[in-house]
């Protein structure tokens, strides 16, 4: 029987299996950031241990950094201390740090791929659930807790139960105005916020193959939002084209050898998945969420479900609670509803291609005067590219505030927050209660849909602006 892509990589990294217990998996690359690493550093120090393989860990500061005036000391004391702790820890333990002020600094899941650190066939972990992003290159990549960060520090391994494997096939051609964010929001709305718990997901099919690497990263990024440990896409020419000549990608002969190796990374034709889901690309329209988990999404022209339409009692209660928090009514349309904030950024949608999509909608237009627009490039390199392409002029002409690289208003941790009670159309990944700041109300959508709302000031079907 053939093997799945997941199994091929897992088996290659299996150090040993504990009888009636988890597997010991070797980790090729470990990313860390300021929020989930300090307790892991103090943990290994308390045990009197050294970091076993410091060269296999790379650090950046992203979650808890300001996105203006990054050259100045961080104003908020706890944040400043936490970021400084990362600097101290990396220095002490000889870990490469792309910290504030470094030209490679940025959101950890943006910089790994753009520097060529993320490569096919690798096992990659980080103390952040959106580590699944790196699976777009055909790697096993998943988020871990701080105890597991400490395990990697101590042994370059972690203990994991082998998950089941699911394949989601998206076949066909995408409609106009539909981008990869819509694909993943559509999938999650179909299978729910817990529909892939216990699984690792491989995305396949002609619609997935047609996507750029940036678009594939957006899809793998949100795998965790349906409960999956991770998502992955088999590498192909698109992958190799993206990676070639990246800073840490293999060079010359080593490159050719690696590409030959990477070409073997696919699920065999007779491989068996524990579950398969088939989706027609033509069914997908621009998506938006109305609730407080990413599974509560609808197509832009649909109405919020009515309470009566839901048979499961628990789900009905969830819907009522979510709508109360969101200040919405069951059965209503979202289209035309005023929004006060637009956030374009996060590890889901802050790469250069995402920003090009935004520019394509707003070029020659002005933002609505009632909307506060934050646009946050995912890394210093994305910001530099933005200027090189002249997109910064398009954004400032439209009245957008361009900020510096970081997680920004995705998670309500740093200075960037959405005020209580206000709506925000956000290209990020979570619409949980209070996610973007206490009392904030998040509507998740694609960069195109977010750009459209920035111009009109209301929830808009972007296709009306593209005509």
């Amino acid at each position, binding site marked *: 029987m053939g093997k799945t892509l997941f199994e091929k990589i897992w088996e*290659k990294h299996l*150090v*040993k299996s*504990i*009888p*009636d*217990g*988890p597997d*010991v998996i*070797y980790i090729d690359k470990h990313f860390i950031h300021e*929020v*989930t690493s*300090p*307790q892991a550093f*103090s943990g290994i120090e308390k045990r009197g*241990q050294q970091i*076993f393989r410091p060269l296999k860990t790379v650090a950046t500061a992203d*979650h808890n950094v300001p996105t203006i005036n990054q050259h100045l000391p961080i104003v908020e004391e*706890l944040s400043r*201390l*936490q970021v400084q*702790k990362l600097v101290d820890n990396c220095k002490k333990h000889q870990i490469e740090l792309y910290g504030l002020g470094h030209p490679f600094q940025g959101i950890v899941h943006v910089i790994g791929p753009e520097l060529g650190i993320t490569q096919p066939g690798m096992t990659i972990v980080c*103390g*952040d*659930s959106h580590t699944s992003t790196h699976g777009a290159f055909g790697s096993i990549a998943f*988020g*871990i*807790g*701080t*105890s*597991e960060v*400490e*395990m990697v520090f*101590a*042994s*370059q*391994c*972690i203990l994991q*139960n082998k*998950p089941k494997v699911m394949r989601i096939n998206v076949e066909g051609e995408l409609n106009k105005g539909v981008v990869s964010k819509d694909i993943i929001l559509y999938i999650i709305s179909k299978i729910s*916020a*817990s529909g892939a*718990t*216990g699984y690792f997901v491989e995305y396949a099919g002609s619609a997935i193959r047609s996507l750029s690497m940036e678009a594939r990263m957006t899809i793998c990024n949100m795998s965790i939002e349906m*409960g999956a*440990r991770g998502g992955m896409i088999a590498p192909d020419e698109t992958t190799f084209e993206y990676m070639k000549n990246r800073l840490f990608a293999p060079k010359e002969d080593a490159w050719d050898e690696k590409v030959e190796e990477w070409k073997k990374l696919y699920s065999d034709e007779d491989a068996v998945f524990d579950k398969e889901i088939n989706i027609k690309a033509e069914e997908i329209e621009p998506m938006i969420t109305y609730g407080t*988990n990413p599974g509560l999404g609808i197509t832009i022209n649909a109405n919020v479900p009515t309470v009566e339409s839901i048979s499961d009692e628990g*789900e009905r*209660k*969830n819907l009522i*609670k979510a709508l109360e928090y969101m200040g919405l009514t069951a059965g209503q349309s979202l289209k035309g509803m005023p929004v006060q904030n637009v956030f374009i950024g996060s590890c889901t949608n802050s790469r250069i291609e995402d920003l090009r999509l935004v520019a394509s909608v707003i070029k020659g237009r002005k933002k609505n005067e009632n909307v506060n627009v934050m646009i946050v490039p995912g890394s210093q390199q994305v910001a530099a590219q933005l200027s090189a392409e002249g997109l910064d002029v398009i954004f400032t002409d439209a009245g957008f505030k361009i900020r510096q690289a970081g997680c920004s208003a995705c*998670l*309500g*941790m740093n200075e960037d927050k959405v005020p209580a009670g206000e709506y925000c159309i956000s290209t990020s990944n*979570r619409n*949980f*209660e*209070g*996610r973007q700041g*206490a009392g904030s109300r998040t509507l998740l959508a694609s960069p195109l849909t977010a750009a459209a709302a920035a111009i009109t000031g209301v929830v808009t079907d972007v296709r009306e602006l593209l005509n």
Partner: protein
Amino acid sequence: MKPLKNIQSTFIPLTEENIDTDQIIPARFLKSTSREGFGKNLFRDWRYYHNDEAQPKAGFILNKPEYNGSILVAGKNFGCGSSREHAAWSLLDYGFNVVVSSFFADIFKNNALNNGVLPVQVSDKFLQKIFALENGSTLSVDLEKQTITIDATGEQEKFDINNYKKTCLLNGYDDIDYLLSIKQDIINFEKTLA
């Protein structure tokens, strides 16, 4: 990590489903560089109006003094979302040793086990039976036998945990102790990776 064996306690029911780790501990409280002191911010925005300890939300169960115990019983898909281990730390620091639900998110489950908080997964039916109990009823969790019992009625369910993790919890060992003990195997394995 403290060893964990048998727990008999009253419980606190939280019937909501899909409780994500942003609710358990909002991101703005993740700025600490230690593992201690997170309990006071557990379910922070469900507990207080305007983030103000002087304005508790009277209807929220953790604010009702008649509800207490070291077991939290929650609706399905508990712990979804962010990988923050702070969620497990805040539950433990608040005084919970066991969380019962009909479904747990994967990362949360690992984080809980790595901190000596036992996730007990029960059937939907059993969960509803627990929710229907009067306040003050007790539950007994026996890790060795892998059972959870409603003491008033004697109704019981078995729960899953692999033998490795069970041994760790019963003895207070953690995974890092284990990984350090097989370091030579890891070094040998590295030689096989080209």
